[in-house]
């Protein structure tokens, strides 16, 4: 249950890694991880390789991140979701909203 943030050297790529359950308890950390990134054209990558579970608040958080990124001409990419997490993303039809790389 943790949020890790990695910023590339040029500052254009921000990778946010989620470990364990991705739920409401992470919302403050998650929000803090991107709230100060206000440069144009940044790419936010959400790495879900070690995320075991996801609830609707996680989806809401991702959408808020998407709003934030788009307001700064950036975009959001989800990478390596597990089978169960990917199913939840499919139900939410997130593959229509943003890029999901398996």
């Amino acid at each position, binding site marked *: 249950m943790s949020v890790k943030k990695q910023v590339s050297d040029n500052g254009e790529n921000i990778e946010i890694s989620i470990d364990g359950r991705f739920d409401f308890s992470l*919302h403050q950390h998650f929000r803090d991880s991107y709230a100060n990134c206000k440069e144009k054209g940044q790419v936010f990558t959400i790495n879900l390789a070690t995320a075991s579970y996801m*609830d*609707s*608040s996680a*989806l*809401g958080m991702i959408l808020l991140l998407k709003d934030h990124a788009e307001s700064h001409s950036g975009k959001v990419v989800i990478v390596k979701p597990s089978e169960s997490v990917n199913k939840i993303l499919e139900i939410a*039809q997130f593959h229509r909203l943003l890029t999901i790389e398996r």
Partner: protein
Amino acid sequence: MKNKQTLLLWLGGAVAIVMLFDLLFMQVNYFSIICAILLVTTFVFLIKEDNNSNAIQLANEITGNNSLNEQGIEQTLTSIASLLNQQMSIIDTEVDRASGLIRDAVTGISGSFKYLKNLSEDQQQMLNTVISHQQGISDDQSMTIESFVHDSSATLEDFVKVIISTSKQSLEAMSFTNEMSKQLEGIFSLLGQVEGLASQTNLLALNAAIEAARAGDAGRGFAVVANEVRALSVNSTELNNDIREEISKAQVIIKQLQHSVETMASADMTSTLEAKNRVSEMVEHVGEVNVKTNTVVEELTLLSPKINETVEIGIRSLQFEDLTHQTLASLKNNTQTINSLYQALNQFDIKQGGSGEQLKMLQKQCQQFIQKAEYENEHRSVSQSSMEEGEVELF
């Protein structure tokens, strides 16, 4: 007559033996020769007469037999006539019976064919209804399982969207309440400053009161003012505490609000996932069932015209009744011929000695009957021998 002949024969025989004896043992003489000639002549005469009497007897016998034969012919013909009559009446009865049976059977079969045709048409109509229902074109209002499942799927997707959107809005609300909480913290620090001002004012008022006491009577009025100022500072400290208390209450409420928002934002998607899976399975199942049903219905649709065709063939085959009736009717012609023959035989009356002519007449009549029968056979009303020919409309 016969005794006389025998006697003469014996006598002749005896004389002949005597003569032969004479010829062998004695010499030939005239007497003997004359005797022999006489004897032979007598013998020849006797034999001739015997033949004549035989012929007469035969003729007499023939005459007696003739009358017997005529009687026999008449009897035979009469028995033939009665046999013909009996057979004819049997044939007539049987033909009528066959006609009746065929008529009844055909009425029954025709009725059942009509019923079968009606049933087949009903079936066709039902199938058409089923097909139109299946395709959902019969009524825009009608609800097919397919559309129901599709709607369920869409509703589920909407539901998921609502959940996610609620979560998103809740998270936004959450950040707003966090901001509000921070603002309240700021108010707390401001209140601390206000409290500091109040305590300083209190100290200043205390100092002022001390200075006023030192000044004696001249400072009495100032001492009153200093006391009032001190009282104000105490009041403002009390007010400060009240405000702090209220804000603390507000912060508790904000905590409760945040908890509610958290609950609102955190919806477990597992059950939704299962529901979605079930709907997907249902969609697949309904699709398969639909395909199968459509195939069966199409096969049934092809079957109905075949039934109709078969029924029509059956109905066409029913014209055998007509043909059979005609055949039976022509059979009646034959029995009429037999009847005429019977009449002719009945009229046959043998007069004494006229049998030959009568028989000739009868032969002539028979010849006429044969000719008539052949003519009728050539012009038989039923010439059709196969059911395949011709069309018969359903009556």
